[in-house]
């Protein structure tokens, strides 16, 4: 098993004027390929802070983060950007698609940034949209899509450059139960197809779908459990899965 994420003594303090707010106080864990990890815990316990450090959009106060064998905690902006582009897929609670672009163009954006030719990236974007079940909606603008559909476009966008790690912060946070269930099924399928996933969530169903749950409190890990597959109760949802190899 290759280690995708290696976190050692990770700490992150925010400064509010003179006051220091310790959001993470020394967190250590490892995630292997292709694990599916849920991070849960009460509000304010540091889940998003941790995810942002894994996603290389923030820097720790101390400790180290390695992703796919590369130290990423002290990268400069240009390298961090390049790393995010090639190795990380990020899905946010709000769907955060670019409103001016169509579904397909949103997925094409990281491909274009990575320098893929127009023809190639168009084909790849279509393939990804089909994978998330939106092949027919490629021309639609985000405003013409439902919340669940927008989130699926966001997932397709996160997968565009075949990242080593897919990160999601409350991906079902703004979705209703049914759409949330579709999302859970999609994540399971992604994981089955080989994607390593770390998801932060309050959603018990989503957490239950994961194979490992990290419990946090007050900036530390208080429990780390591997879920027995037999224990899992998630109803499969008809998402019309498209055949896809990864």
């Amino acid at each position, binding site marked *: 098993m290759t280690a995708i994420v290696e976190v050692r003594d990770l700490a992150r303090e925010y400064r509010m004027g003179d006051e220091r707010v310790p959001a993470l106080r020394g967190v250590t864990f490892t995630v292997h390929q292709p694990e599916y990890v849920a991070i849960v815990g009460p509000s304010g316990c540091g889940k*998003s*802070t941790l995810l*942002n450090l894994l*996603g290389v*959009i*923030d820097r720790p106060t101390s400790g180290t983060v390695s992703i796919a064998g590369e130290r990423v905690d002290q990268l400069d*902006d*240009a390298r961090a*950007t*390049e*790393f*995010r*582009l*090639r190795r*990380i897929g*990020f899905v*946010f*609670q*709000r769907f*955060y698609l*670019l*409103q*001016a*672009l169509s579904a397909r*163009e949103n997925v*094409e*954006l*990281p491909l*274009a*940034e*990575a320098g893929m030719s127009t023809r190639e990236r168009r084909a790849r974007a279509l393939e990804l949209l089909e994978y998330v079940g939106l092949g027919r909606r490629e021309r639609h603008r985000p405003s013409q899509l439902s919340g669940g559909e927008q989130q699926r476009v966001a997932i397709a*966008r*996160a997968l565009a*450059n075949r990242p080593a790690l897919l990160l999601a912060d409350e991906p079902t946070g703004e979705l209703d139960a049914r759409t949330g269930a579709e999302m859970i099924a999609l994540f399971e399928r992604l994981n089955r197809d080989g994607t390593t996933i770390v998801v932060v969530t309050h959603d018990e169903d989503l957490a239950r779908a994961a194979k490992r749950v990290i419990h946090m409190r007050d900036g530390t890990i208080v429990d780390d459990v591997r879920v027995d597959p037999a224990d899992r109760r998630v109803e499969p949802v008809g998402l019309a899965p498209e055949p896809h190899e990864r």
Partner: protein
Amino acid sequence: MLATLALASLLRHRTRTVLAILGVAVSAAMLLDMVMLSSGMRESFRGLLLSQGFQLRLSPRGTLPFDTEATIRGADSLLAVLRARPTVAVASPVLGGQLHFPSRGATVTASALGVEPAVQGDYELVAGRQPTAANEIVANDATLRAIGHSLGDTVHAAAGYDPQLRTYSGERTLRIVGRVRFIYLALDQRAVALPIGTLRAMGGPASADRISLAMVKLRPGADVERERAALHALLPRVTVTSTAQALEQVDQRLSYFRQLAVILGSVSLIVGFLLVTTLVTVSVNERIGEIAVMRAIGVHRWRIVGQILLESSALMVIAAPLGLALGLVTARWLDSILARFPGLPERIDFFLFQPRAAWTALGLLVISGILAGVYPSWRSASLPIAVTLRQEAVG
């Protein structure tokens, strides 16, 4: 894709975009007008001074051409000296004065120039011919209108007039053989020209052998400055002014105009700059969440800056030609108002369109507009991603 995003963001707020374009166009127009104003009068004076090809002007020592009523004595010998010089192609004498025309019980007074018609450089014929015979005269439209005569008519004229006694002196009957336009005079200024001998004869002993001014055209290849210095040394009673010097004089007198133009031009440049900075700041602030997401998924900083700059330069590229057109229209309009400025030669333009200056002005504006976008766009592209996303998710 960058272009799509830039265009989309411009189209998202159509009214705002249109208003910004208009604002920038107005400031571009103002800038262009000021550039035209700062160089326009100078250039058109230059054109005026050079239009007849005379490079040197001789006036009574210590004066500028036609600045005073002083005249030069010994005109004939002076002209003989000039014409004997190998470098001199043409020497054209001018005697300034006044003629009075009794007309319908009143007296119309006009400036009169005594010239050698064959070599004169003070007027252009509009109709008729040069006043070659001693009793011939040419006049401009303002004069013809005032005295109620036209081409071919015979008129009565006097060099002297005593308004108290209502008596005339130096009277002659002259035939109007040409309708002319005086190059250095305002359109509504009454003026006539006639052979210098006739004007001298009418003026009596006081004007015998005198001229107000001599204009000199040099042979091709002659060094104007050297010839000026030579004439200055040779002729102690005159001041020799070259076109370059005359322009310097004009320049000094126009320095207020130029300062005004520079100040107003800078102001419009600053206004354009601030307008674009404001627009970019506002538009970037609206999209801060979108920008943070783009950064989070791996879009490089400079590409975001590029997209925003593309946006502001698109504004500029649309606004610039609009400003150019607007500037030309307002310049023409202002010029037509200022053309009625009393005492200025008809041909003087306050606003002169010189393509290079205009493009410089607009280039300056476009560059300043783009520069105005650099800072806010770079700042927004450099915001901490995680913090921005967090704030945007809450907001």
